[in-house]
């Protein structure tokens, strides 16, 4: 029999809030974490605003030893370790050190790159004939699996310890990979999540592609405008989100708090065929991903109360709304509520899926739908498909049962996960 899978812990390092309390407050109140970035200005980026979590050194010291922080230069690992350990503790799991690894717990913690600043530093040393001066941690900080390796060691994990990578779908993918592993009985709990480095070396490529906005360098908080007629590109962001994905029986046995149930989901690709390409989604694949996710979760499209979209604030937002509408067979005022976290944190790239999933699960658990900001001027192509009342611009407090969350990434890859409010007997009636 397939196991039921629940979420028992959350951790968050977001541009608009580090820690669950700060983040929950920020999303409920539409508090933006987008700021002017003097380094991007110095480097003459077109887009000089960004979403970057604030992690003071004294906070880092609560998660890393002084020795670990010597020559440490990997913002992605910093964010991921904080979010991961916070989620672990939030789930009521012990930080006690034992000799025996915890065979039933693992981590699937994704990222796009690792320690890109450390990588840059290392390359300069190598080219300067200073390879011998790289120190002992250049590999651990720059290997893609650095984040899962750091977390695995800090928590003594003995099950799967790996890093997944699928561009902006990474975080959503990690949750579904964790779900599958637990559902099949191969682990009791997986620390799922994803992280993304900060800074010019991660964001430069997007700036060069002209997909980031250059129109809001003087008005950072207005810059990220998903679903708006005046959306002019995404705002780069960074951070990490983490979720403890756990076998229901194990969660009940240890009396854990249960945030939500993962009913199912789907991962696919458009194969870069049809309208799909390296950078554009194939709409047939997106719709198929959403439909297959509902099928896998065993729900009817009408049961979806809300959607947390990918919605980056580029010209693709209207297409995404069309895809949701077609996949669900719902439009106008019958469409579910929909929101995009990117209006207040920017596009956190490989961390987007996990940060946005944490926000989604918080909505289910605390019964609210966070407001979208910067879409006073909704795009007419969007309001032609769905009623404007479906795009909340003020906090809605409301009992919620099912929320769908999707992410789409470069490489024409898609992920959709279905979260449900946890009820003990939801599947046995």
């Amino acid at each position, binding site marked *: 029999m397939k196991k039921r899978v629940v979420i028992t812990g959350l951790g968050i390092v977001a541009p608009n809030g580090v820690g669950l309390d700060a983040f929950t407050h920020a999303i409920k109140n539409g508090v933006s974490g987008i700021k002017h970035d003097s380094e991007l200005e110095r480097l003459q980026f077109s887009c000089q605003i960004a979403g970057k979590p604030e992690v003071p050194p004294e906070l880092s010291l609560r998660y890393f030893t*002084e020795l670990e922080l010597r020559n440490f230069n990997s913002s992605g690992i910093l964010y991921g370790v904080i979010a991961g350990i916070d989620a672990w503790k939030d789930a009521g799991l012990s930080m006690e050190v034992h000799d025996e690894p915890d065979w039933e717990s693992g981590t699937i913690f994704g990222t796009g790159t690792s320690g890109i600043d450390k990588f840059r530093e290392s390359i300069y040393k190598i080219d300067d004939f200073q390879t011998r001066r790289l120190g*002992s941690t250049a590999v651990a900080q720059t290997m893609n699996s650095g984040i899962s390796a750091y977390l695995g060691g800090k928590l003594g994990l003995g099950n799967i310890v790996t890093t997944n990578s699928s561009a902006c779908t990474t975080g959503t993918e990690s949750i579904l990979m964790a779900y599958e592993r637990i559902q099949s009985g191969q682990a009791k709990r997986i620390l799922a999540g994803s992280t993304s480095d900060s800074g010019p070396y991660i964001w430069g490529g997007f700036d060069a592609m002209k997909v980031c906005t250059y129109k809001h360098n003087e008005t950072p908080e207005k810059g990220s405008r998903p679903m708006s007629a005046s959306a002019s590109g995404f705002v780069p962001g960074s951070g990490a989100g983490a979720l403890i994905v756990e076998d229901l029986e194990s969660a009940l046995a240890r009396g854990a708090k249960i945030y939500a149930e993962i009913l199912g989901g789907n991962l696919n690709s458009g194969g870069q065929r049809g309208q799909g390409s390296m950078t554009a989604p194939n709409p047939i694949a997106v719709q198929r991903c959403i439909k297959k996710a509902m099928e896998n979760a065993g729900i009817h499209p009408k049961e979806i109360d809300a959607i947390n979209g990918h919605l980056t604030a580029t010209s693709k937002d209207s297409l995404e709304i069309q895809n949701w509408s077609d996949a669900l067979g719902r439009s106008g005022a019958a469409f579910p509520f929909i929101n995009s976290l990117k209006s207040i944190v920017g596009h956190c790239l490989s961390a987007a899926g996990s940060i946005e999933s944490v926000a989604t699960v918080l909505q289910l658990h605390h019964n609210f739908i966070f407001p979208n900001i910067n879409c006073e001027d909704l795009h007419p192509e969007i309001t032609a498909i769905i009623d404007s009342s479906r795009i909340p611009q003020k906090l809605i407090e409301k009992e919620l049962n099912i929320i769908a969350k999707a992410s789409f990434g470069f490489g024409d890859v898609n992920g959709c996960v279905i979260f449900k409010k946890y009820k003990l007997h939801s599947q046995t009636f």
Partner: protein
Amino acid sequence: MDKQEIIEKLRSIVKPYSNNQNAFDNLTESTDFISDLQINSANLVDVILDIEEEFDIVIDNQSMERMLDVQSAIEIIELKLSEK
């Protein structure tokens, strides 16, 4: 630089890497970096880089290989200092 001075400098260099407080408190010439101080073997290269920086010397690969305890470290540091 006399031996005691070198030992004092070594003491502050190895401090962050040591995992055995008792062995660190009782550090002598015969203290072994790995078996006594329980320094992670991967960190030995960091210890050597710190020594190079502190004493402004360059330690070649061969010397590095035998620099596993306080005594050999002192010998190598004295040799490199005398060659300066």
